[in-house]
Structures are given as structure tokens and as C-alpha cells.
């Protein structure tokens, strides 16, 4: 039970972390190397993230959700590998 749970939660957490990094790095106008990500994502986020203040809330929300999933995922990973914390 613990291994499956850890893989699933960690996967979701890492995907949301990826979205977070796209948001954050758009703001600092270093969006050059995001283009390596794939033209589809680029076109999608081009339209959504533009102004600074509007994005702070979105960034914090993404960070919160990602940290919840990553936290639980790492806990289940520890339990699955035998470190019963």
C-alpha cells in the first residue's frame, strides 16, 4: 500500500512543481529556456501569466498544493523503504 501511494503522490507533486516553476520563471522574464519544454505549454502559458500581482496568488496556491503532495509523497516513500518514522 505504501509504495503505490508514494509513487502516485510524488508524481502528482512533481507535476505541480513543474507548473510552479513555469509560473515563477515567467515573471522574471527568463522564459527562454522554457521553450525547450514544448511549444504547446509555451503557447498556453503565454496567454495566462502576464502581470506580476495577479500571479502571486496563483504562485502561492501552486506552491501550497505542490508542497502538500510532495510532503505526503516523501513520507510514504520513507515508510515504504522501511524507515518507520
Amino acid at each position, binding site marked *: 500500500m505504501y509504495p503505490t501511494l508514494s509513487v502516485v503522490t510524488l508524481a502528482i507533486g512533481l507535476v505541480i512543481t513543474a507548473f510552479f516553476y513555469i509560473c515563477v520563471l515567467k515573471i522574471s522574464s527568463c522564459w527562454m529556456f522554457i521553450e525547450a519544454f514544448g511549444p504547446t505549454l509555451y503557447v498556453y502559458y503565454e496567454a495566462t501569466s502576464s502581470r506580476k500581482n495577479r500571479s502571486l496568488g496563483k504562485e502561492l496556491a501552486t506552491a*501550497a498544493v*505542490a508542497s502538500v503532495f510532495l*510532503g505526503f509523497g516523501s513520507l510514504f516513500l520513507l515508510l515504504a523503504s522501511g524507515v518507520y*518514522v
Partner: protein
Amino acid sequence: MKKNSSVVVDLLLLLLAITVLATPAFSDLVLSKVERRIDVTSQIARVTKTLKVVNSGSESVSEFTLTFPKFLGNNLAYLSVSHSEGKGKAKRSLANLSVKEAHPKGMPDSISFYSVSLPKPLSKGDTLTLEVVAAFTNVLQPFPEKITQRDIHLVMLQESAQYLSPYVVESQSLSIKLPNARIESYSKLENTKVQGSEIKYGPYKNLAQYSYAPIVVHFESKAAFAVAEKLVREIEVSHWGNVQVTEHYNLVHRGAQLKGEFSRLEYQDRPNPQGVSAFRHLLARLPPRAHSIYYRDDIGNISTSQMQSDSKKTELLIEPRFPLFGGWKTFFTIGYGLPLSDFLFASEGKRFLDISFGSPMIDLVTEKLIVQVVLPEGSKDISVTTPFAVKQSHEIKYSHLDIAGRPVVVLEKNNVVPDHNQKIQVYYKFSNINLLSEPLMLITGFFVLFITCIIYTRADFSISKSSAAYLAKLQWDEVLATLQEVQNIIQKCLAAHDKLEASLRDLSRTGDIQTCKAARKSTDSLLKDLSKELRPLLASLQSFPSASQISPKVEELVAKERELQEKLMAKHTTVVEGYEKKSSGRDIENRIASQQQKIIALRQEVDDLLEFIDEI
């Protein structure tokens, strides 16, 4: 030899003391029948006594006294008394009675007294049957004390053929069960018989109080005299589903010491291996469903071990790195995990852990046993219930993801024999919310990481706000923003062109001229709006000095796009007119052929310029 003679002198003095001191009347109980069986097949002397007690006095008695000679009493590891009913096959053992050490006044020092409280007072004339089980360590003395590798292991037992008791004994018998090996010598009193590997003394009739007849039996023992000088058992409870037990052993061979050398050649010689006094294997009985078992020491993993598990138990046979001869020591660690649901239960709002106390190894005597029960963080109201006396204390242990540390209950006991391997209960209170503190700590850790990232990208780390480089950077940001918007608008224009082309294709498919004209009109107005938006952007772009190389390209792009627009519109009009005049398809094709080529070329140039702007 010295030890032997000193003990005999002790016993003679004891007899003297007893006869000299007129012993005050202990109650008027009479033991009508005493049967004693001493089992010395292992390193522990286990004595099982069945006593039939008759109250021949006039008062009812609620206490019974057990006595042992001092040299046995000092080595008493385990004592349990129960009373039973019925005879032979119908014998039932009822509850254990509480036994306490007693020191009655005026008694000689060479006797240990234990007082047993009877379940209900024994009234006049009543009989009661008591079953006493006593285990003694260190009473099988190796004799000779030092042997070579080739010698057999001979030990000596000193006991009394007549039962030492403060009461009158009417009839008694003693049988000593020896291991199936050589009997060197034994004391021959009256009524002594040897049957196979058992020596029977008795029956003796009508003995006075405190009668004592010392006997000595010298025989060969094949048991492993494995003694753990110190055993530390750590039991860690985790509510995520696991009980982890780690045991650290300091093992020593307490039999006859090895004198001379150890020859590996002789030890492994077949068919006559020399070294019967040593032991190689130790068997541990673990609970069923034990997992992740490891056997290691300071050097590393020890691979000489075997495990066999079934639904009732898990048997672990371990072999230390070398065979243990008399006086040799070794140390190792055994660890295993157990499922939590087998050991943790709930009662009356509290949880309790029901786990065995002693070492899981069979036939191991522990001189000093320390059991540490580590409970999860946030446990309160901790209490321990044991069936025998232990010394308790509390500690704190800091482990993974801990804030305040985990409470540890430390139980200590000396001289532990396998009879002590009973279950103890540790009660505590724990609310499930404390379980969430661990993932919350991890979540906060990750969140802090993300916040740092956000702050880093937003914070302005420039030292001077009016330096040329900083201003240039600001300007460049604006240029890029403007370029971005120009690109967006051009993309929208191109989308409008595509729509126009699509309407032409629809026309060729359906022949509906009106919709085609309507599409052209809407596209026309859209394109006009977009070009209006484009103009201020172009103006601002020209005002930036740093964009001096880019603005001509952008203007070129806009001009080309406008040309494309016009050509497309012209083509569209031509095709629609052609359809209105109902001229053939090939005519229309010929008319727009040249226009089409120019359109394609222009489109290509526009795309190239867009790509160039993209890469800035």
C-alpha cells in the same frame, strides 16, 4: 575441590545451627506427600515440586513458607507457586499465588525463606496441593573448572535428598533427570536407584523439620552454557504499522574454561571431532510474521543464519562467527520488524502493547536484561504491567522527525531465564492528531523551499538603481514586452488570413456566395482594428534607442503583412466575382495563379521574420 568442601562445611554448620536453636513453631502444617523432580538437562536446574499440605493443627493457616538453602536461594532466578486440584490426568493448575521473600526473626542466615499466600485460609483438617516451579542458575558447577579441547564437559550438582522444610514431612521422593550422557558419580544413600538417565532417591518417610541430606551428582552435560552478560532489547512502536525490535547481545560461555590451545584441525576432524564442550548454534523463536530480520555485529553482516517461518512462529538459527568454548565471548545484534496489529490493542480509552519480555532465544540465561520500549511522540500516561518484579525508569529518545523526543520506558532485570519470557503490557494514551505532525513537518519544509524560490525571482538584487546597466536592463524588458504584443497582433492577423482562405474553400465546396462575402467583410473590419492597435506599438518601439536594430525589421514585418493582406483581399474578390459570373473553375484558377504565387512567397517571408523576432 575447594568449593565442594566449603559447601559441605556450610551444610554441616547449618545442621548444627538448626539443632542448637530450638526453632519456634511455624504453623502446624504437615506435608503429607512431597514429590520433587529436578531437571538438569540444560544449563538451568529446574525443580518441580508437588506438595500435599495438611493442616493438622487447630488454627486455620493462610501462609505457607518455602525454604531453600542459601547457596541455592542466591541463585534463584524464577519461582512460581500454583495450587492444583484433582489427581493424575485430571490435575488442573489453578492461578499462581503471590510469593514474597521473607525474613522471619531468629532464623539462621543459611536458609532463604519465601512466603506464599494461600488463596483461602486452610482450615483444620483440610488438604491442599501446591505445585512449585523453581529455576536456578549457576548451580551446575563445571568440575573440573578448566578443561582442554578434547575433554568432555563435566558438571556437579549439589542438592539435598531430603526436602528442607520448616514443616514435618511424612513421605517424600526425589528424582533427578540427567542428560542422556555419562554419569561420573553420585552420592549413594539408602533407597537410591538409577534408571537409565534418572536417579531416584526415596521414598523417605517421617522426617523431622529441617532435615537435610546433602548429595552430589557429577555428570556430563551436553547443554550449551550460553549466558548473555548483557542484553539490551529496544522495542520501537510506530503507529504507521510496525514494531521494530533490536537486540544487542554480549554472549559468553559459562561452562568449564578452555585451557591450552584451540586447534581448528582437531575441531573439524571427521570422524572424531574434538570440542564437544563448545556450542555453535543458537536458536531464537520469534513471533510469526516477523520481517526484515537482520543479524550483524560491528564488523558487518553475519551470513551464517537460517530462517524458517510458519503461521505460529518464526525460527531463526544463528551461528556466531566462531564456536564458543568455555570463557569465550562474542557480541552481535539481531533486529526484526513485527506487524503492529499483532501487538497493539485498545482498552478503556488507552492503547497497550502486549509483547514478550525476555530474549527469544531458547535456553539462554541473561545476567542483565534491559528492555527499552520506545513509544511514539506525544504518548502520555505511560504505565507498565509485568507478571514479575522489574526496575522501571523513563528516558527520552530523539529519532526521525521528532520535535520533543519520544518517551522511553526502561525495564531492568537481573538473572533472567527462559521462564521469564512472558508477556508484559505497556499502557499509554495517544491521540491520532499527533500522527499528523510528521507529514506536516515535511510539507512545511517543501513550502519554505517554494517560498524561497518566489522571493528570489521577485526580489530586486541590484545595488544601484540609477546605473546605466540597470536602466538599460529596464528598457530592454519594455522592448521585449512590446515585441511580444506585436507578435500577438501579427498572429491574430495571420489567423484572420487563414479564416479567409477557409471561406474560399467553403465556397468551392458549397457555392454559397453570401456567406463568403460576409466572411470577407468581418475579416476586413477585424484587420483594420488590429492595424490600429499596431500603430502605437510601433511608435513606442521606435522611441527606444536599444531597439534600433529591431525596429526596421519589425516595420518590414508590418509592411509585408499589409501587402499580404491586400493581395489576399484581391484574390478573394476575384474568386467571388468568378463564382458570380459562373465562369469555370479553370478560368478562376488561371486568373488568380500569379496572385497565389506572390501570396505564398509573402507568407514565407512573414514567417521568417516572425521566427527572427522569436529568437530575440
